[in-house]
Each structure stands twice: as C-alpha cells, then as structure tokens.
C-alpha cells in the first residue's frame, strides 16, 4: 500500500477535478476507498508529482521515490479494478462435508445480518493513515544495500542537478570556455572536463578541443598511450595566421 511521510509529501498539492488539497489527503481517501479508484486521473496525478519535483530547488530522492511509488501503486490499483474480476460467488467451490461445520455457520448468520444492516454507517478516520507497502522481493546483500545507500546519499548531497531534463553544454559554449581557460595562461588537462561532467558534456569538450586544433589555436600533448591529454594555447601569431587562412 501507499506509505508516505509527513514532511514533503504533504506539501505536494494536487489540483484535480473535484479535489484540491495535499497529496497525502488524496491518497488517504483513495486507500480508504472514499474516492473510487476508477475516477483517479493517474496521468494527471503523476504529471503534478513530476512538476512538484522539478519545481523544487533540490532533488529530494526520498520524496521522489515515494511519489513514484505512489503513482505506481495508483496505477496498479486502477488496473486491477478495471480488469474483469470474477465475483466471489463464482469462485466458491464446495468443500468436502468432513471439513464443513454448518452449526457454526448458522450461529453466525444473525451476526452477518446485523453487520449487513450497519453497512453505510461509516465513520471517517484520519485520511493520512500510513499503510504498509509489502516487500516484493527478498532484500539483497547488506554490502550491496550499503553501497546503494552511500551512492544515494552522495547524489542527494551533490549540488543542484536537475534530472528531469538533462542539460548539456553547446559546442560554442565549450569552445569559448576552453579559450578563456587557456588564455588565462595555464595549460588545461583534458581530464578536468570529465570529472563531474555528464558523458555528453565530455563529448562536447572533446569536440571543442578538436575544433581548436583544426584552427591551430591550440596544440595537444600526450606523453604516452592513455596518459592525460594536455591542451596548450598556441601563440597569438599562429592564431592570427590561422584566422587569416
């Protein structure tokens, strides 16, 4: 079932047909069957969850995981509800008489009628009751879990990086950045561009170096195979002649 924390989750506001309020209230209503799961606009809910995540200044991995789990749970509940289910009566296979005690059933018949008469006299409890999410698989080894946890912690503590829309450096920006760094007088080691950058950023910077080499504005030095590539600024005269050429 849907499990959520008070912090963050309750701050995610949903605006849906017939409902305006916090996500935890809405999910509580669905979990308690106060809102028919058939009427839940799962796509809208997911879109608003994603919007809430991308609007945040920092990516909260815990909250993101909870919102995704909640969306998946809603989708599973709605799918299960929409699938044709056999009625309970169709599922009833008579059992052998030796395991059936009709006297006990008779003693409960009055209680069944009493409970039936009480149907519809609902009381409403807290909406945001946490419900338990069942584990779908056995836990992995503690060492793997520990490594995954450290990785998540590192990513959560890293400077802001939006994950919904991956940003990348354009070639022109990479070229001008490289020129600026080289003109300040120091050589640039290419590894500098691969440290915290994404793969596409690294490719863009490599293409920028190639472009500058083609224009003879820089030259590169690599002492041995697989060693660091050092980019050096060519002389201004070479640059001028290259531009004239």
């Amino acid at each position: 079932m849907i499990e959520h924390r008070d912090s963050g989750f309750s701050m995610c506001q949903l605006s849906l047909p017939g409902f305006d309020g916090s996500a935890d209230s809405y999910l509580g209503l669905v979990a308690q069957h106060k809102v028919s799961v058939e009427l839940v606009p799962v796509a809208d809910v997911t879109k608003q969850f994603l919007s809430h995540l991308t609007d945040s200044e920092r990516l909260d991995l815990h909250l993101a995981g909870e919102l995704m789990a909640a969306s998946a749970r809603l989708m599973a509940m709605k799918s299960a509800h929409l699938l044709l289910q056999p009625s309970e009566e169709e599922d009833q296979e008579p059992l052998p008489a030796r395991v059936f005690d009709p006297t006990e059933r008779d003693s409960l018949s009055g209680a069944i009628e009493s409970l039936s008469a009480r149907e519809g006299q609902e009381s409403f409890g807290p909406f945001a009751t946490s419900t338990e999410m069942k584990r779908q698989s056995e836990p992995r080894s503690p060492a793997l879990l520990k490594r995954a946890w450290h990785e998540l912690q590192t990513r959560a503590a890293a400077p802001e990086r939006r994950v919904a829309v991956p940003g990348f450096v354009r070639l022109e920006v990479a070229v001008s950045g490289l020129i600026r760094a080289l003109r300040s007088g120091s050589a640039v080691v290419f590894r500098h561009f691969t440290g915290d950058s994404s793969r596409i950023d690294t490719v863009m910077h490599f293409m920028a170096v190639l472009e500058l080499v083609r224009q003879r504005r820089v030259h590169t030095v690599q002492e041995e195979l697989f060693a660091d590539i050092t980019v050096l600024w060519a002389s201004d005269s070479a640059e001028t002649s290259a531009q004239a050429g």
Partner: protein
Amino acid sequence: MQVHDGSAQLVSAPENVEVIHRFLGTAKPASLSRSALETLTIVAYRQPVTRPEIEAVRGVNSDRAVHTLVSRGLIEERGRRDTMGKPSEYATTFSFLEYFGLRSLDELPALPDNGASGATPTDLGLRS
C-alpha cells in the same frame, strides 16, 4: 473514539456520514457481496483466523472473498500460524471499525444462543 488492538483514533460519528460525503464530494463505497460479508463476519468473531478455518465454517472456497477484503483494507494478515503449512492469520483493521461505524470490536452484536449464549468477541478470547 475507535479503539483497536491497543491503538485509538478519533473519527467522525456514523450519523454524519451523509454530510461528510457531501462535503468531500465522495460516493459511498460499494456494498460488500454476501460471501465477502460472511467471510468478514467470521474473521471479526474468530480472529486471528486462517483461510482454511474460514472455509471450514463457510463450506466453500473463500480465496476470492479474502482477497477482496484484504484489498479493501477491512482485514489484514497478522502473521502466520505455527502449524503445518504455516497458514496466514487474518484479523480486522481500523478500516473495518470505520466501515461499520463501530467504536471497538466489543460493539459487534452478540452471537445467538448455540451453547455459547450471548458470546461477544471478548468472550471468545479476542483482544479489544
């Protein structure tokens, strides 16, 4: 106030159900089928109870009814019986009390006289 399994919660009074549904813009939940109601009654009075025990009272396969009640949150698994096959034990939840507007299991109607006259859930050894 509803009390269940050592916990308590404040709830609205059952007589306000219409007003609250109108306020929330929600519909009343679909009624339970006869077989689901039978199964739920057995769980309420005999909890914690295993599926074979439910079937022994009803005389029919109760897989689907138990599944329906679990998915509606009216009953839940409460561990496993330490016997052959380790069957799951089922018990009622807070949602069960909410659904029927009961304050506790003690408010369940007493069973008719069949050797255990006027037996309430507490008499049957259930936790309040």
